[in-house]
């Protein structure tokens, strides 16, 4: 009996202490992580639609199923400068979160990738300016070069390039359909 209970009790003690440490660590890092996430989002919003103050649109109507949130950007006198649309699309390694700035006419003002799970050195190149800057100024329905479109895809990472393009398309579509109401 002792041969079974002693190891079981000791394993339990080790697990219990580890769980306590993890809980403590999670508590300590909770606030810095939340602050980091918010900072990343604020920076991304400011980058895709400069000089605007943002208001979150509470009950937006999603046109594509990738749109997860919309912020209206207004200038100092309250006129609508554009929209920052958050999208989550499905990419090579999992979900890809991005923010797309679109002006009221449906032209892209900027794109930033917030998080992704793609391969470093390949799909992860979507986070580099060389790739995402090309979307600035584009409008209409976009497609990557392999599909006959105007988006220059990342070498060996067509799936990631498509994922970003889908998000940009949905963002433009949302603004074209609903933008007039704000």
């Amino acid at each position, binding site marked *: 009996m002792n*041969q079974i209970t*002693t*190891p*079981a009790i*000791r*394993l339990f003690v*080790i*697990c219990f202490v*580890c769980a306590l*440490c*993890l809980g403590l*660590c*999670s508590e300590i*890092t909770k606030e*810095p*992580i939340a602050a*980091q996430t918010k900072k*990343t989002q604020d920076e991304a919003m400011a980058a895709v639609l400069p000089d605007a103050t943002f208001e979150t649109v509470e009950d937006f109507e999603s046109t594509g199923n990738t749109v997860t949130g919309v912020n209206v950007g207004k200038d100092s006198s309250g006129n609508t400068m554009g929209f920052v649309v958050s999208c989550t699309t499905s990419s090579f*390694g999992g979900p890809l979160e991005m923010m797309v700035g679109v002006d009221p006419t449906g032209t892209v003002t900027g794109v930033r990738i917030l*998080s*992704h*799970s793609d*391969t*470093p*050195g*390949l799909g*992860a190149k979507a*986070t580099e300016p060389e790739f995402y800057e090309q979307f600035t100024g584009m409008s209409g329905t976009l497609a990557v070069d392999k599909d006959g479109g105007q988006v220059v895809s990342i*070498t*060996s990472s067509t799936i990631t390039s498509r994922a970003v393009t889908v998000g940009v398309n949905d963002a433009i579509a949302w603004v074209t359909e609903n933008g007039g109401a704000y």
Partner: protein
Amino acid sequence: MNKNIRVLIDGIIFNNPVLIQVVGMCATLATSVSVINGVGMGLSTTAVLVCANIVVSMLRKFIPDTVRIPCFIVVIASFTTIVQLLLQAYLPAINDALGIFIPLIVVNCILLARAEGFASKNGVVASFFDGLGNGLGFTALLAVMGAIREFLGSGTVLGMAIMPEAFPETLLMVMAPGAFFTLGILMAIFKHLIAGKGQSEEE
């Protein structure tokens, strides 16, 4: 003290975790795409390895033989999670670059191999040096592989372009086959160089 330095050098060179023990292959092949990725992964692994080795060594008389593997894994997984939380909170840049590789530290064989093969049989100080040596050996190898693959694959080292634009980028080198080629060649050269020199004390 002399013995500890010997343990440290063993980990880095004569008993290098990747080149000699041939453990931790998955992480080696996946993260050696560039120098920065390799060093980041290496140092994160070193941090977990040192902590896990110390704790396993302290608990070596408490851990029952029959359930030692679950105990090691719980300790390793806890430290990995702690490292991930700390990186997310205080070093977001490294966390972004290494994202999905951090949780993979748990399944890196180096950690279990050192816990089972060294820390569970040796004192705390020796285990610290063993963890540090193996971690640094792993980091050094990842850095060298990262440099070779980054140079041949993208014409850059540490993200800086050092070859003219016309340099033919060998895409194969940043993809999986390039990792196998590089590792195989490095392993052959390394074994040739240290053949007959210095015997691991463990064997």
